[in-house]
């Protein structure tokens, strides 16, 4: 098959792998990566479709670039959210040295 | 929508209780005089406006108010003879019940909320009485459910809440059925205004399935409030509400709304001819007869006074349905006039029951011995109500039963006459013992269960509790004695039926 069709199918496969990862994985950071994979798959499909015409279709290129921008912003936000949550959970499980009193010290 | 006197008067009648009701929500508990003033202003205004409308109608004026709402289904308020009869009954009895409620609640909590919902309930009742088409009727029917629910659960006890849930389950379900019936009818024939003889005669053959289904749906919906079996179970449960609520709602507003709706549907939407042609009246007749007998039998079994009265209501309201379903002018007169008469007599009975429980803590039948000695005037009113229910002349109940019986004969339904007679016997069986106990038995030696007296009390009980039952008992007698005149409920019903049957 020609290169366009090849990259098209690769794109679809990557999309499906990402989707599978999102549904199956538990860890949030890995799920972010899975979503990024889905995005990568879609952009690859867009670009592969662009190569079907000669010269290369500018509209699809524009769509891919716009999609990339949106994906970057969304990933940045997702990472901020996920990392904040991870830090918050670590903070909760760490022993708190700054506590004013523990229940052992309470007066009877 | 032109703003003339003839189009605004129905709205004023509606607003005369709605606006005070909404204002009373904001009144604080301690501001007794403000609240009473608002209440009584509303009552007086309403009676004034109703009087104006009666005067106008007697002079040949037509009162109609329309507001666009849905495509081909505007909201219409129209004062015709049947609606005026119901409006007058509701307004007069609202006056009596307001005074009774003020006395009954005394210094109880949440009076503002109570009276606010009370006023809204009456607004919904006159709204559906004045409704000029099915969609307006549906609107006020549902608003009635919403306005009466807080009154049923007023006490806030677990039993009240349970009764409230049952009440809602039945009435919301019934309301949905009614809505489906109205919507179905609208899709077939558009929502035309109520007119004597109905507006469905042209399409009876073409859409007979649709019309039959719509009728069944609407009767199901109306039958919940009209306490037709097996949709009646909410009514005895709702007796946990305070006595004024039971008196007004379950003797006048809610139950009558259902019966009124059935009258409207059979006479002014379908018309007697179409109803008979579609064979809709026979099943309705059987249902009514079954309810009459079932209600009476269950009433015999009750030991709680209010529950006995509740089952008696179930039975008595079906007289109205029986009269409608018998499809004859005499039966129609009997059914329509019984709407008024039963309202007067039943409210008397509930007022008296409320007096017994509030003054002496008497709730059960066995506790009623010797009431006649302790509370003679209340017991006298109770006797009048009970005898009227049985059908003893010259109290109003006799007139309605007479016409119903004659109507049964006119429609060649001997078995219906038999049902009426058996039911009267059963009425005697469950009312006469109460009367006997009250007058001819000695008071209990250990005293009354929970005697209460009010400061400055001069009569057997608080004057606000005593006056209303005496008033309504007097009206019951007058309605019977003066039945021959045009201004009586009977004369009025004859007028309505003459137009319906084109006599």
């Amino acid at each position: 098959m020609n290169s366009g069709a090849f990259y098209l199918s690769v794109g679809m496969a990557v999309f499906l792998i990402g989707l599978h990862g999102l549904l199956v994985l538990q860890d949030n950071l890995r799920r972010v990566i899975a979503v990024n994979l889905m995005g990568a798959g879609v952009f690859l499909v867009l670009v592969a479709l662009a190569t079907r015409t000669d010269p290369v279709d500018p509209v699809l290129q524009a769509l891919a670039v716009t999609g990339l921008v949106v994906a970057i912003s969304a990933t940045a936000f997702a990472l901020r959210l996920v990392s904040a949550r991870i830090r918050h959970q670590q903070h909760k499980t760490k022993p708190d040295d700054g506590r004013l009193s523990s229940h052992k010290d309470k007066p009877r | 929508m032109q703003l003339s006197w003839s189009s605004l008067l129905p709205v004023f009648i509606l607003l005369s209780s709605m606006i005070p009701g909404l204002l009373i929500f904001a009144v604080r508990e301690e501001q007794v005089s403000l609240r009473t003033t608002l209440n009584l202003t509303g009552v007086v205004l309403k009676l004034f406006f109703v009087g104006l409308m009666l005067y106008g109608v007697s002079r040949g004026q037509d009162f109609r108010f329309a507001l666009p709402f849905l495509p081909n289904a505007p909201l219409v308020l129209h004062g015709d003879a049947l609606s005026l009869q119901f409006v007058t009954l509701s307004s007069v009895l609202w006056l009596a019940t307001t005074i009774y409620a003020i006395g009954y609640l005394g210094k109880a909590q949440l009076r503002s909320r109570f009276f606010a919902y009370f006023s809204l309930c009456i607004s919904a009742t006159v709204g559906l009485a004045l409704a000029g088409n099915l969609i307006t009727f549906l609107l006020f029917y549902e608003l009635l459910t919403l306005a009466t629910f807080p009154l049923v659960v007023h006490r806030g006890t677990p039993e009240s809440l349970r009764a409230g849930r049952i009440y809602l389950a039945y009435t919301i379900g019934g309301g949905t059925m009614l809505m489906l019936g109205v919507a179905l009818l609208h899709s077939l024939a558009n929502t035309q205004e109520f007119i004597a003889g109905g507006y469905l005669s042209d399409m009876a053959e073409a859409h007979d399935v649709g019309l039959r289904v719509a009728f069944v749906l609407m009767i199901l919906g109306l039958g919940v409030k009209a306490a037709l079996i097996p949709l009646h179970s909410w009514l005895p449960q709702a007796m946990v509400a305070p006595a004024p609520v039971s008196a007004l709602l379950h003797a006048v507003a809610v139950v009558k709304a259902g019966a009124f709706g059935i009258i409207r549907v059979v006479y002014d939407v379908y018309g007697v001819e179409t109803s008979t042609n579609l064979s809709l009246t026979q099943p309705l007749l059987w249902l009514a007869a079954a309810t009459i007998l079932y209600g009476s039998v269950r009433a015999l079994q009750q030991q709680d006074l209010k529950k006995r009265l509740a089952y008696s209501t179930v039975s008595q309201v079906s007289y109205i349905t029986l009269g409608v379903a018998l499809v004859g002018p005499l039966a129609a007169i009997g059914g329509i006039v019984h709407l008024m008469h039963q309202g007067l007599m039943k409210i008397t009975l509930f007022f008296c029951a409320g007096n017994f429980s509030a003054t002496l803590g008497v709730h059960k039948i066995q506790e009623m011995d010797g009431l006649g000695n302790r509370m003679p005037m209340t017991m006298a009113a109770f006797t009048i109500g009970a005898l009227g229910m049985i059908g003893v002349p010259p109290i109003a109940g006799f007139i309605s039963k007479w016409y119903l019986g004659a109507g049964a004969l006119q429609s060649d339904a001997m078995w219906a006459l038999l049902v009426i007679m058996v039911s009267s016997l059963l009425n005697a069986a469950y009312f006469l013992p109460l009367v006997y106990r009250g007058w001819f038995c000695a008071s209990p030696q250990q005293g009354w269960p929970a005697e209460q007296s009010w400061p400055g009390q001069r009569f057997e009980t608080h004057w606000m509790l005593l006056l209303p039952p005496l008033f309504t008992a007097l009206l019951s007698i007058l309605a019977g004695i003066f039945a021959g005149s045009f201004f009586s409920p009977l004369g009025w019903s004859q007028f309505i039926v003459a137009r319906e049957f084109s006599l």
Partner: protein
Amino acid sequence: MNYALVSVALPMITVVLLFLVAAPVYSRLQTLVTGGLVIIITVISLSTSWLALLEAAAQSTTSYLAIGGWEDGLAIRFRLTPVVALMLTFTALIHLLLALYGTFSRHGVPKDYWSLSCFLHGSLAALWLSADLFNLYVTLELLSLSAVALVALAGPGAWKPAADYLLLSLAASLCYLFGVALIYGRYGLLDIAMLTVVVNDDLITRLALLLMTAGLMLKAALWPLHLWLPAAHASAPTAVSALLSALVVKAPLFILWVLWSQVAPPVMAQQIGPVFALIGILALVFGGFSAMRTPYLKVLVAYSTVAQLGYALMALGLLLAWQQPEMNSALWLFVIAHGLAKTSLFLAAGQMQTTLGTKRISGLRGATQTTPIAMFAFAVAGGSLIGLPPSGGFLAKWVLLEPLLSQPQNWPWVLGILLGTLVSAAYIFRLVVMAFDRARINPPDISSDHVGQWLALVPAVLVWGMALAGEQLIQLLGEGI
């Protein structure tokens, strides 16, 4: 069209303004100033969209604006129809109500709410106006990002539901984008009006539409892809929950409607119509049952959203199955009535939760005495959800019922509506009855916030007041497109 543009641009400008000028809002004065600014902007936005609505209703044709003056096929176009204008007005109205609540109620909104909500307003308005598939994608993404950010404002407890929502939302958007790519690959067009003419029923189109539908259903929390919604609602701030249920989930519904009623060929639309309608009934039933069983107040309201969206999906499905443009009114009346009622429900729920110090329904015992106005607002708004006359919900249900009842073969669908009504009544009244309990009242923790409770009542009154404009609304919306 100019009015509509002003309506979109103003909130976006305000976002920039708020970032540049205002400090984070801590004190009461800062709340009043920022909130006041947002209120003014939203009022202007509401007025301009109202004027756009009047204009669109008078002309009753679609007007287009090509951005940058480029020619058709290349340009990004904005499209103004009566439905779009109505949605613009509706968005501005909800934002105004919430801005008033945030400024004047003691409960208030989180400090970063203002800029994010203006951003949400702007992106949603741009979504309504969009006329091509990719623009819809971009505005949908903007909408989702701002919605997630708003949910996360509640603090650490909300970060997990927010993260879940974000990831699922991104995945759903990518499914949608994949579908768009396939459509473009097949037809070389993105503009909706131009696609309507050329679309055929073939495998690629089916695949694309199904992908897009799946993504949109997840974003709109349509059963069975709704599981993120109750969790997000339970943790989100009150005003944000209102935004989420009233507005954010309606945007994917709008795109779904555009897709199937305008882009898809009628043959395909007629096939998927009954499927949508059936899913709608299942949403009504299962959402309703979940609402009846949950012990938490906000989760009940969230499941109520899932159930009510079932009505909308039923209307959409039947509209597609029978290709009757009159049923557009049913769909959009539901959207508006539900949006207003849900705003009221969430504001009232938030008030009751804060004042009574409980998140549970059992904590609302006696609420008719402790928080009477909020409870009244809850009951009135609930009445519209059940569909009691003469509320907006009743209006929508009536318009949906008419074509169903007129032909006996359609009567089975009526059972779905009947079930929906009864189930809604069950969960609303479950709460209302408990509120009348006088024997075991849950005493309030803090004094009542009267302003906030009255503000919660305003949307409920509005949704019942919709009845006054019933006939005009039905006519306006029934023209289709």
